[in-house]
């Protein structure tokens, strides 16, 4: 069974608007979760990991054990944020991905 799910395949927002990508996991305990990003014509690369508790390119992600979620958020989206985003866990389960389009 899929351990990591991303319910949204597509997400479109205007530049400067907040953006939130949803990620849910389906197991108990202390998961280690990641967000990966793939920009157009580039390799899939790590965006951030929850254990680091850092903000990368203005994005943050908080682990919510009560809701079993690891949503990715950015308060003000930029056009360069347009990309495919994947949520993944430490057991090699990737979500189906969310394509984000930021419109001017």
């Amino acid at each position, binding site marked *: 069974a899929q351990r990591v799910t991303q319910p949204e395949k597509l997400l479109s927002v205007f530049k400067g608007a907040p953006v939130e990508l949803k990620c849910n996991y389906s197991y108990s305990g202390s998961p280690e979760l990641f967000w990966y990003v793939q920009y157009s014509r580039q390799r899939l*690369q*790590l965006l951030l990991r929850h254990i680091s508790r850092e903000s990368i390119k203005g994005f943050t992600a908080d682990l919510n054990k009560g809701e079993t979620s690891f949503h990715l958020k950015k308060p003000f989206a930029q056009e360069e944020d347009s990309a495919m985003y*994947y949520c*993944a866990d430490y*057991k*090699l389960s*990737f979500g189906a*991905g969310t394509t984000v389009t930021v419109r001017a």
Partner: protein
Amino acid sequence: EAGVTQSPTHLIKTRGQQATLRCSPISGHTSVYWYQQALGLGLQFLLWYDEGEERNRGNFPPRFSGRQFPNYSSELNVNALELEDSALYLCASSRLQGQGVNQPQHFGDGTRLSIL
């Protein structure tokens, strides 16, 4: 540092044939992972190798197999190719730590396998 390299970039085969895909990890990385990225299905985990041993396997049939060499490079072999095997196959590498993959993975550009 040089990134993960995969070869070939594209591979065209017919049904029933066998395909071999290759991956060279980043220097210092001992773990290699293989994923299948079929259209609309996201990344599906195939295989994980570390120190020459298969550590984990995804939900794929036995005709998907691989190996890791002493220099940590890896091959993915797909036998008896079927049309639905057409996909982008991604390789990733990482350092290994702990019981799970809690080190970030670094991905290659992938091999596009097309089955005619």
